[in-house]
């Protein structure tokens, strides 16, 4: 196992997938709390929000070692609504 400073290509794509998946899980678990009626379900979604937030931080840290890593701009460069 070589001690590379950057990640291998394939695993970097796995982190790309994992990060997007966790981001969407966070978004949905947060959004759904505004819709659900049952308190226990809502609490479990909040737990998912907390866990996903933590997971995202971990993935982001490692994702920074992807070979295609680059500077992250302040916000999206061009407005999406033309």
């Amino acid at each position: 196992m070589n001690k590379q400073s950057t990640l291998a290509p394939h695993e970097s794509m796995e982190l790309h997938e994992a990060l997007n998946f966790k981001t969407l899980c966070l978004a949905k678990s947060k959004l759904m709390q505004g819709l659900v009626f049952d308190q226990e379900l809502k609490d479990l979604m909040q737990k998912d929000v907390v866990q996903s937030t933590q997971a995202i931080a971990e993935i982001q840290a490692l994702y920074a070692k992807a070979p295609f890593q680059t500077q992250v701009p302040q916000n999206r460069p061009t407005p999406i609504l033309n």
Partner: protein
Amino acid sequence: MNQDYLDPINALNMPEMADTTFAMDFLLRAKEGVRNAAIALTETTSPEARTLLRNQLRQGIAMHQEITDLMMRKKWFHPYELSEQYQLDQLSANNTVMIGQMNLFPGDTSRKGMFDRTPDEHMKGDQA
């Protein structure tokens, strides 16, 4: 239940139907998360990446367990009495198809102009 979203008949036990649907979505995401993490783990070589994914896989399995237990307790999920599950599946499918045919959202939703400039930009106010 019918197509008229103003008809109070549609409110009858709507909360249970809604929560069943939200919980099912939550369950499917948890299942997806476990499966994705397992497959991702088999494509990673760096020790750091493997540790991270192994932890997330374990956490995902635990969350999946919690959601499943909650859904069974609430009778939103019947893995043992399949005729119960059959009824739920068909019922929520019918209801969701009906919701799908309702005209719920206004035609133009671009909300143009509300998000792509500062409020007083057209009066050069933003350079005041």
